């Protein structure tokens, strides 16, 4: 089903947001009008009653990874800390459209993670078992069951890397990236949050170890508290505040095909062959490519990564041969050494950071906003984000999500 853009013209357009100029000062400012920034602002207002707040965004709302991701939502992560965080988010997704009164097109069509060798199988079962005991829905399917669930996957044993089975999270799925931006922005605006676009933060004022305000392209703005929610550009911002993060920013490319009648009824991800693909509501195939190895802020990567993706895709879905890549793009993903985010306090008082979601933070959107809002409002991490602190890199208490589910989208 797709929205008819004209039909609504006959009715009054639902209002999305105001375009305010920044006030002189705010109780709290969120830097970054991506999904996590918008969700943070929304929950600050809604859960914590803070309305003297602003989101400052250098471009337009959503112009970072928010609109560039492949929209896969799932919570079947291996480690307890991650599973708790993502499951919290998934539960929020399940009621988000109703709560925000705006259809974010969350479709729980199921996410398959394919296993192609014995190592994959072992790690998949390990994850399914851990998920189940953490209260996260997860199933192991053998190859025939995979075929039954997703008939267009090629499971023939002659394949270079035959499908040996898959994990399935039925509650996982996709949502419409742009709609989520509209929905969260509208809800935050309605609660009084100033969404300030075209406002780039160029400096962070720190006095006696404590943040007091921001320098921006629209002038200085004072702030009692500041949350940095700037994904791939976070290193540039923390440098303004005088500290570094263990983050590298990489291009991650994705692509969409032209629009076809529905052929793919679920999300399929494969680690060994490196594919993740779904078919959006409108009918375009949405596919993610591998990460480009180098770091970059250019929002683009190499075509060879896409070419490899196409070979991998054809291995699993031979009938995609005549599907066409219509548009490719790259986001800037903020990758942490353990493939888990950093959400919490910083060395600067009243300055909080939420980043490192890397290739997989879309699914966390409501959960991330929820715990970030808690952290900003109370000055203490929420129980769920406590393990995701910066200090884990010193103690070694990493939450290493590379091993079991290396395709972290």
């Amino acid at each position, binding site marked *: 089903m797709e929205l008819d*853009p*004209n039909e*609504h*013209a006959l009715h*009054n*357009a639902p*209002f*999305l947001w105001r375009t305010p100029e920044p006030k002189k000062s705010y109780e709290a400012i969120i830097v970054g009008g991506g999904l996590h920034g918008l969700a943070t602002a929304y929950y600050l207002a809604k859960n914590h009653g803070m309305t003297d707040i602003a989101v400052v965004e250098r471009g*337009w709302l*959503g*112009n970072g990874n928010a*609109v560039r991701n492949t929209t896969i939502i799932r919570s079947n992560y291996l480690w307890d800390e991650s599973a708790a965080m993502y499951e919290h988010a998934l539960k929020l997704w399940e009621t988000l459209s109703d709560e925000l009164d705006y259809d974010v097109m969350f479709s729980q069509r199921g996410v398959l993670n394919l296993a*192609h*060798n014995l190592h994959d199988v072992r*790690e998949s*079962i*390990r*994850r399914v*078992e*851990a998920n189940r*005991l*953490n*209260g996260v829905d997860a199933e192991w399917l053998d190859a025939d069951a995979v075929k039954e669930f997703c008939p267009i996957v090629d499971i023939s044993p002659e394949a*270079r890397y035959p499908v040996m089975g898959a994990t399935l999270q039925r509650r996982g799925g996709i949502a419409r990236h742009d709609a989520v*931006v*509209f929905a969260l922005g509208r809800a935050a605006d309605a609660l009084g949050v100033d969404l300030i*676009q075209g406002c780039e933060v160029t400096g962070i004022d720190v006095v006696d170890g404590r943040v007091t305000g921001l320098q921006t392209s629209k002038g200085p703005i004072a702030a009692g508290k500041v949350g940095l929610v700037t994904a791939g550009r976070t290193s540039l911002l923390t440098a303004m505040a005088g500290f570094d993060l263990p983050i590298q920013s990489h291009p991650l490319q994705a692509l969409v*095909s*032209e*629009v*076809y*009648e529905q052929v793919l009824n679920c999300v399929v991800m494969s680690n060994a062959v490196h594919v993740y693909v779904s078919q959006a509501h409108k*009918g375009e195939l949405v596919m993610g490519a591998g990460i480009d190895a180098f770091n970059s802020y250019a*929002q*683009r990567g190499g*075509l060879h990564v*896409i*070419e*490899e993706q*196409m*070979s991998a*895709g*054809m*291995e699993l879905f*031979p*009938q*995609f*041969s*005549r*599907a*066409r*890549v*219509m*548009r*490719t793009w790259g986001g800037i993903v903020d990758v942490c*050494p353990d493939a888990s985010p950093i959400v919490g306090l910083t060395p600067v008082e009243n300055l909080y950071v939420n980043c490192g979601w890397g290739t997989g933070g879309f699914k966390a959107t409501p959960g991330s906003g929820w715990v970030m809002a808690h952290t900003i409002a109370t000055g203490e991490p929420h129980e769920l984000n406590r393990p995701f602190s910066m200090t884990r890199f010193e*103690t*070694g*208490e990493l939450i290493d999500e590379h*091993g079991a589910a290396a395709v972290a989208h």
Partner: protein
Amino acid sequence: MKRLDDRGRIDHDHSFEFTYDGRTLTAHPGDTLASALLANGVDVIGTSVLMSRPRGVVTDNVTDPHAFAQVGTGSVTEPLMRMNEVEVFAGFEAEGRLHQGLLPTERESTRFEKRFAHCDVLVVGAGPAGLSAALAAADAGSRVILVDDHPHLGGALLGGEKLIDDKPATRWVADVEARLRANPDVTILTRTTAFNNGDQGAVALMERVTEHLPEAKRDGRALRRMWQVRTHELVVATGATERPLVFADNDRPGVMLAAGVRGFLHRFGLVPEKLVVFTACDDAYRTAIDLAGAGVDVQMVVDVRKDPQGSLIKRTRELGIEIRDNAAVIGTDGDADGVLTAVRVASLDGGVPEAIACDCLAVSGGWDPLFDLHLHVSGGSRWNRKLVGFVPDGSLPGIRVTGAAAGIFGTAGCRRDGHVVGLVAAEATGHGTTADGPAAPEGHDANEGPTADFVDVPGTERIHAFVDQHRDVALAGVDRALGSGIHHVEHVKRYTLVGTGTEQGRTAKVNAGRLTARHFGLDFAEVGISNARPLAQPMTFGSLAGRSLGVRFDPVRTTSIHPWHVAHGAIFEDVGQWKRPWFFPQGNEDMDAAVLRECAAVREGVGMMDASTLGKIDVKGKDAGEFLDRLYTGVMSSLKPGRARYGVMCKADGMVMDDGVVLRLADDHFMATTTTGGAAGVLDWMEDFLQTEWPYLDVWLTSVTEQWATVAVVGPKAREVMAVLAPELDVTQDAFKFMQLEDAVVAGIESRVARISFSGELAFEINVPMTYGLALWEAVFAAGQPFGITPYGTESMHVLRAEKGYFIVGQETDGTVTPLDLGLDWMIADKEFVGRRSLRRSDMLRDDRKQLVGILPVDSKDRLPEGAQLIDSAEYEIPVSMIGHVTSSYESSAMGRTFGLALVRNGRNRIGETIYAPLADRTVAVEIVDAVIFDQEGARRDG
């Protein structure tokens, strides 16, 4: 439309039949699907995406928002093919599907190829600018590739009646083409689209090799070929595209773009009966003039501008064509099928509209330079108010935009600019000399007037005045978006979907941006248009994958012994790119039965295994021992020549990275073995430290993984087999100890034999040059027959080593496990090694870390799945706290029971305790035991 016999570049003398929507139609060689349909009077080619409105062909090129078809049938059907690009042939089949194509349902075997190419100057677009550039660069001595997406060179010159040097422009084209073809360093590719521009001149092209031919004439050749060009200089001469105007019912079949109408005349000899032209620029007058010249009844030119001047307008008047200035088409009328029958024209100052009968309305809102290849690498653009079009802004290294793509709209200017750009590009590649004059400035020909900044007709009905005809977005849709508070074009795009269709809104985006700017009273130069991205044209997955499929997708690596494994019915396991025998079933055995048999043979008699895939690194030099000491947790420098030692290495973060046995061959010579999957990574790791951290060490590394094949002879009877194979070699315990190496002739092959055991049994690993691997294997198999020698695979190997508590990298470890967690405290020598410091971090010192232990299910028949989680109590409620997981789990023939290995919190202090594996269908009690379960004294390794 009607076909004129004396016009166009098609072969009028021949014709053939093809099928569209099940109807049999005729076409001529040279026809595209679009021209063929127009010639057959197929005005309605399908319906639109949201409103199901009838739609027709709009123009003669790939920017057409409607002209898409589903081509072919069965497994070779291809959705959304461009009707203006697809050439028809006898037997061609297509169906009108303007959106939502159909994917085939089966695998196809069509060939899509790739080719690499290199050049000094790549010229994209063979219009006057591109041809001039290519010729100048080639004449200067550069290696040139010239590409154009049409079957013929000439670009816009093919769709008009221009003169160059007083001769028809096509004569000039032919002349330039001949000169280029005569140059051996020039490659000309027609029917080829440049679709992606990457960094440092990496340009991707797609050539339609046999697509225009009937299946029978393709003869096994590729349908398409992707070219991966690396060019020093890229010349973008891709021309410009025309954009429409917005008015009520502007989507009716019969409403077309002006240059398209002209193109259909000149390229295909097609003309309407009665024409009206509606324009905001001079160029569309060419359509009126040319069609009048072809005998078409040109009713009127409706021009939104007041009192336009210039030679084209003058000429139009001279032909007696009525020009209605300061006027607009405010609506259109159609017949029962919706096809255009009349337009309604009114003055922009108001007044009564006048209906004018026509079957074609040729519209032009102006021209948009097309420079995607510059945008692909983050090139900028700026709005040129005078041209009323976007032009490239700023220059990028190695990329030059010329001709109409750069906003130079006159043919003479295009030639001039192309020539200069060609010379400059050649010079940049070290050929020729500086250009002989200035390039041409952007702008129209001197005889052409300015384009009006005009998008939609004031007061137009909103619902059926289309901005994006492909996505069915009308003014009303844009209004609604703009009424919601958004004002950024990207938000408008994402709200309305303008420009997100398969032609990426080529005819829509600029108008949508201008409407947005006007609505908010903003300057369009600031508002801009939504982002353009690759690909310049959509390309199929299959053609981008090329031949990298199946056996060519990823290497299948096998050892020299592999043919024997295949011949003896081995079932294989993928380990990285290697295929390794997993088990060797006999008769109807399943895996469990085969593995029990194989393991029993090894423990009771003798087994043999192909261990050739293990990584092997030759380490040579005076400092080789010191070097290895710095990388392994243990000490290697104290090893005596002729002896071997097991080693583990960590990443800098202290986590186990790889393990293997290190053999000392001489004082300054070692060979380190690695895991199969880790081989490349370990060598890279070693080289990294050697080259960048310790370049002063005298050490030389060489990969010898594939120099050596390794056959392991394992079991209590291994000595007896060895005695047969190597009569010269003293294999007695005293002469040949555990972890000792000997050079020996084995089965007549010069070998290096080592007593290394991964099973706890007496074992000999025989290493011979890879080419002798199969011969050795066969000899071992033959010599072992009297002892019942049993080939075994990786599964049995895993069972045997697990019984001994040996971990497998990647199975017991996952990047979060330290050597201490594995109980390898004894291997942490008192010296610095990479990663050591990490073992002192607080989290590494916690006593409740997960540690490697053995587990025995209380029910000795119950085999746990690997990956099962472990908890403290038999009763539990979800969520439950997990204390570890089962890393390995097997049935042991030696012990007659199931067992496993697990990582368990504080596990080593909990030996003897019972914990639980809560499975979906049952909860299994398991006892924690020492990781070494079988033969704890190690009595068996010496036989």
